[in-house]
């Protein structure tokens, strides 16, 4: 059974039932659990994306970066090639949402049906 591409950066290998990086093919964790468990995770300082605060006067500054007491930036990397697979914007300490969890059995059944219909 083939790999199925399920996001820009992730495939599911239906034979092994594993998440795989679409860029490098790195086999990650079980596709029956959240893909983030197979990634490398990093809390990126928001000013590295949005820049440092800009001082307008002695006691006034503005920032394009989210306030760290409200929101942090969490990056998820492929452990094989370092591709940026996903980003979550979350308050500090908020559990990581499970973005997608496909029904693997139905996905396999669907792939089998599609393959059979091509034959």
């Amino acid at each position, binding site marked *: 059974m083939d790999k*199925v*591409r*399920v*996001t*820009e*950066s992730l495939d599911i290998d239906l034979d092994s039932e594993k998440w795989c990086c679409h860029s490098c093919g790195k086999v990650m964790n079980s596709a029956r659990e959240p893909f983030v*468990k*197979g*990634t*490398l*995770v*990093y*809390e990126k300082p928001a000013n*590295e*994306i*949005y*820049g440092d605060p*800009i001082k*307008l006067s002695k006691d*006034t*500054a*503005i*920032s*394009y*970066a*989210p*306030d760290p*007491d*409200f*929101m*942090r*930036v969490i*990056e998820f*990397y492929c*452990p094989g090639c*370092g*591709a*940026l*697979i*996903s*980003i*979550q*914007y*979350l*308050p*500090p*300490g*908020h*559990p*990581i*949402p*499970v*973005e*997608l*969890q*496909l*029904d693997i059995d*139905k*996905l396999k059944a*669907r792939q089998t049906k599609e393959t059979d219909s091509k034959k």
Partner: protein
Amino acid sequence: MPGGIDPTISLRLHPEPPTPEELENMRDMEPTEAGIFLHKLYTITSEGNEILIKLGASTGCRWGDTAAAIYTASGDSSVCAAGLYFHSVLGSTDIKYIMKHWLNEPSVGVKPGDAFFANTPFYRGTHPPDMAIYSPVFFKGKLVCWIGAIVHSGECGACEPGGMPSGSRSMYDEGIQIPPMKIAENYDLKEDIVNYMNHVTRDPRAMTLDIKARMACLRVVEKRLMPVIEKVSPEYVIGALRYVIQATGDAVRKRIGGWNDGTFSSSQFVDAVGILPRLMKASCSLEKKGDHLYFDFDGTSPEVLDRVANSPGVGVIGVNAVYLLGHLFHDIPHNSGVFEPMSFKMPVGSMANASRESPKAGCAYVHEACSLVVQNVLNQLIYATNPDRVECPGNRGFDTTSYGGINQYGDPFADAGAEMNGIGFGARSNRDGVNVAGAYFAPMTSEPGEIESLESGLPFLYLYRGFHKDSCGHGMYRGGVGMDYAIQIHDSPVISIGSWGFGSLITNSQGLFGGYGVPALPYISVHNNNLKEMQQNSDDKIPGSARELYESGAIRGTYRWRGYPAVADPAKEGDLVAGGTGGGGAYGDPLNRDPMAVMRDIEEGVISHWVARNVYKVVYDEKSLEVDEEKTRKLRDKERADRKKRGQKYADFVKTWLKKKPSEEVLEFYGDWPVKKYEKFDYFGTWPRVKKSKKGNW
């Protein structure tokens, strides 16, 4: 049911079951013929919508926050002009109220030439500035259908000018909120009612003109409909209006059936509770099963009974018509049939399904957060089978001004700024988002207005408006950028000005699959400044963009960080306010963006050199914009290697991450940390193993 207050009406957003008459009349409907006929009806609503926009006076009316629609006799949205789809869909509940309460009430009744005004959040689910007028269409004494004209009129007599007070503490601070009420009989507008509205709102000119624009729209739509009904028969029209709702539901169901089954979830945050900087959460889990979608909003923050942070459930669901009809199912007829294969579980007492008396002026913030989670989970769902339909969200924070006072002609005025209609749209799986594309809520018809036209009607002088540099998310495909603006108070004896929206402390629209979300969005004021002096001297240091204003320090004065939202404060001649709308979320890893596209972004003023170097990791000559491809490749390879070095295994990361927590002050209204769980829910649409309550909630 004291005084006709009806908590069950707003639960009836989904289409009603077809009546026996509708079933009979749609039985032999020929699809092609029906399609041509329904297109005729669409052109009629389009003409109606144009009339609204041309004749109205408020910012919302002039710049496309409008809808013109045709409803079935029982009230379901059936045909509408391209524009603001949620206005059209949410009119259903108002009309269902009229049919339930006024049709057979001898003191009111429903007759040819009647028109009903409505703007209460309790039924249509949006804030009081969203005002609608509906008329029944009769043919030879038979009710054939309803028609509606809906506009965001801006000013409604609330405790702050502009209709959307950030500081309101109860629904009774939020101006007129009228349940469906007869405003015209026998084709005559009741001037005493219009007169009343003019006496309790700040901008009687705009109120009157907007009401008359709605009436003109309805009269033209009815005038166009009558010969059509005569030609094809009222029975055919009745059948066709129900037929298209069912055909829409069937088409959406079929498309959903082609997607993969699974579960998907997303959390989205709001950084304002009224005027307080506090954190709230919209949470959505989607289960896709067969040809049906089940959206569960358990986990969303609780309603706040005395602050602006709440929406009726019907509004949260109805607002998704923007994304569903304007984007995901843009090629399917636009009506409330889209909701047939979708069900919604809304926690009672949450900010997404709030009680009657809590303030609703900021319900749009809740709508935006809740529509973002819906778009996020659907993007995750559809990529595998429909990648071309994946679209990152555009900015949802509004990020505009609100104001009121006496204008340059000595007349009272109050409204919200058209700048909210200048957001950037999100990136797609194969292209960048559109810069300054329109309003999120009216993607095809809204625009931020022309400066000259705005200045001629408002006591404002625009210092600049243009691309809001770096306001997009960065990625393989970037979001479109929003619009920056600076407004100088000019020739007004009395004025208050503030801001409306959210997102000054958070990213309000996220990216997708490795693309970044939009930045936090500053909003400032500069008082006691030297700008007039600079203008008199034609000073070439007068800033021409937000970045120039913030970074150059050319304007001297008292700077205040105000953020979105900020209560309207008194301002005086020459004071300056400045901010900008956000762009759209980005798609994919920014290291995969073509370096030449990055250079084009710099040339077009969309991104800064800082972003090109630090986010996209492009090595180039800043003068010639010539890319050093080899050095760029090496720099990007190094960044990928660095990611692998700094990234932790998930289990190790979570161990320390979960020990963190925002401050107690930030979480004041958030609900149980980290996830609020509810026991009682309202269900919109069918839900497995659940018998729906028909009582509704207060």
